[in-house]
C-alpha cells in the first residue's frame, strides 16, 4: 500500500452533470488503490500548494488508470476542469483506509451516497459485485441522492445492484434524502457504506444506531499533508485514539472511512 506522488497523464475528461467532471488519469497509483481511498490532486498553479482530496471512483488496474469524479468547488477544481487528454497532473496516493469490504461478507449491504459523495460508492459497488462467492454480500441495495434529475453515474450503479434514487427536488425517485428513500422504499440491510455531506452522515449514524445496523461512513475535513503528518484533518473520536493519544483521529490516514459509532460528528 505504498504511497507515492506521481505525475499522472490525463486519459480523458468530460462534464457529466452541471459542474461535475469525470476524469480518467493514467497513474501507477491505480496499482494499489482501493474503494473508499482517495488521492491528493495538485493544482499546477504555483499559488495553490495543497493537494485536493478526491475520492477514487473507479480503479482500472488493467489500464493503469484511476477515475475521479469531482465537483467544481473552487479555484483548484476549476483548474482541473480544464484538463485535456495528454495533460500532466500531479497526484498523491493512494491515501486513507478505504471501505472495510470484509464487513459485507454474507450481509445485506446498503450503499448510500449523496451529492459529490456518490462517486466513491461506484467503485465499492463494483468491488462487492466482483467478490468471490464466499465473500459476497447476500444483497446489495444502492441508494443515491442527487439535487435534481442529473443523476450522474446512475446507469453504472444499476449494473451493480438494486438501485434507488432520491432527489432534493423530487424530479427522480423519492423526493428528499437518502434516508427518506430507505423508509419509503422499505430498504433493509445489516450494514451501510456511505459517503456524503455531514448532515446526511449524521442522519445515517443515527439511523444505523436506531436500527441496530453497522455503518461505515466516509468523512471530509480540510487537509494539508494527506499523509498523517500535520494533524490538520482530525475528527473527534469516542475513545482515545491509539496514535494521537487524545480523542482525535486523522481522517487522511485513520479514515476517511470510520465505523460511525467510533466518531463524534
Amino acid at each position, binding site marked *: 500500500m505504498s504511497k507515492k506522488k506521481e505525475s499522472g497523464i490525463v486519459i480523458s475528461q468530460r462534464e457529466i452533470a452541471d459542474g461535475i467532471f469525470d476524469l480518467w488519469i493514467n497513474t501507477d497509483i491505480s496499482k494499489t488503490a482501493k474503494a473508499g481511498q482517495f488521492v491528493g490532486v495538485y493544482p499546477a498553479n504555483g499559488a495553490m500548494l495543497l*493537494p485536493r482530496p478526491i475520492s477514487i471512483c473507479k480503479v482500472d488496474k488493467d489500464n493503469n488508470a484511476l477515475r475521479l469524479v469531482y465537483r467544481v468547488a473552487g479555484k483548484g477544481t476549476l483548474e482541473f476542469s480544464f484538463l485535456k487528454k495528454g495533460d500532466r497532473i500531479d497526484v498523491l496516493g493512494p491515501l486513507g483506509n478505504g471501505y472495510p469490504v470484509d464487513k459485507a461478507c454474507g450481509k445485506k449491504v446498503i450503499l448510500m451516497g449523496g451529492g459529490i459523495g456518490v462517486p466513491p460508492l461506484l467503485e465499492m459497488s463494483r468491488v462487492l459485485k466482483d467478490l468471490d462467492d464466499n465473500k459476497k454480500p447476500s444483497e446489495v441495495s444502492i441508494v443515491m441522492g442527487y439535487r435534481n434529475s442529473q443523476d450522474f453515474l446512475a446507469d453504472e450503479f444499476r449494473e451493480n445492484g438494486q438501485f434507488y434514487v432520491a432527489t432534493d427536488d423530487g424530479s427522480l425517485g423519492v423526493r428528499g434524502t437518502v434516508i427518506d428513500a430507505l423508509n419509503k422504499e422499505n430498504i433493509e440491510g445489516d450494514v451501510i457504506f456511505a459517503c456524503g455531506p455531514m448532515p446526511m452522515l449524521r442522519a445515517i449514524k443515527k439511523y444505523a444506531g436506531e436500527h441496530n445496523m453497522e455503518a461505515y461512513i466516509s468523512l471530509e475535513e480540510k*487537509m494539508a499533508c494527506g499523509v498523517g*503528518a500535520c494533524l490538520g484533518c482530525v475528527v473527534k473520536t469516542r475513545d482515545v485514539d491509539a496514535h494521537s493519544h487524545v480523542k482525535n483521529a486523522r481522517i487522511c490516514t485513520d479514515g476517511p472511512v470510520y465505523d460511525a459509532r467510533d466518531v463524534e460528528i
Partner: protein
Amino acid sequence: MNTKVTIAGVEFKNPVMVASGTFGSGQEYGEFADLNKLGAVVTKGVANRPWEGNPTPRVAETSSGMLNAIGLQNPGIDVFVERDIPFLQQYDTKIIVNVCGHSIEEYLDVVERLSDEKIDMMEINVSCPNVKEGGIAFGTRPDALFEITKEIKKKSKQPIIMKLSPNVTDITEMAKAAEAAGADAISLINTLTGMKIDIHRRCFALANKTGGLSGPAIKPVAVRMVYQCANAVKIPIIGMGGIANAEDAIEFMMAGASAVAVGMMNFHNPYATMEVVKGIEDFMQKEKIEDIKDIIGIVK
C-alpha cells in the same frame, strides 16, 4: 565535498532538517523520504501531557502558503519517549525534539524528561500561549524569552535551540535575549499570525480564527530575519520559512543560516527534503564549493 555542519558541537551529515510539526515524527514521510539522508528530524512539539489541540477546520490554503491552527495537539511526553524516540533512533540521523508548554513549569517538565533520553538537541517553541501572562507568547517579549531560556538551560543536558517567532517588531532583540541567556542556537522563523475569512459562509476559515502562516509566501520575511539575526548574534541559526528546493535552502544559508528546515512544502512535495539534499550537492559541484560551511553568511 563536505556537506557536514556543526551546531553546538552536534555534527549533522548535511544542513537539511525538517520543520517541527510538518513531518510528524518521521514515520509519516518514511514512504517518500529516506530519514537516513536527513541532517536531522525535528519532531512535532511535545508537551508534558497530551494536548487535544484546536477544533477543525485547522488548516486553510492561502496564496503560496497556508494557515494552520493545529493547536499543538500531541500525545504527551510519556508516549513520545516510549514510541517516537525509539522509532527515530533506528535511523542514522540526528534527533531534535521540539518542546511546547503553557508555562515555564510545563516546559521544564518536558526538558527534564528529555534530558536523559538519547536525543541530540531540543528546540523550544516559544510561540505557545503563556497562560500565566494572559496568553501572550513567550516569544514576543525579550525579557520573557531570556527568562525561559535561562531556566531551560539549567535543566537540559542537550544543547538548546530557541525557536523565534517572527511576530515581533525587532527580531534581533529576541535573538540577543536568547543568546544572552545561554541558548546554543536559534531557529527561525515560526509562522506569521494570519487570518482568512470565508465570505460566502461569513465565517473564519479556521475554527481558531487566527492561524500561523507558512510557506513560500513568507520566505522573504524569513530570509530577512535570518540575515538580521546572523548580524546580531554569534550563535548558529537554523533557517526556515517556505523552503521548497535547494535554491531556497542555499538562499537561507547565504543569508547566514548554518542549517535549514523544510516545512509546509513537504505537503506540496513529499520528496522535497530529498531533493534539497541532492540539490545542495549538485550546486556545490557546479559552483565548485568544497565545503558547505563556506557559503554560510556569504552575502553581506
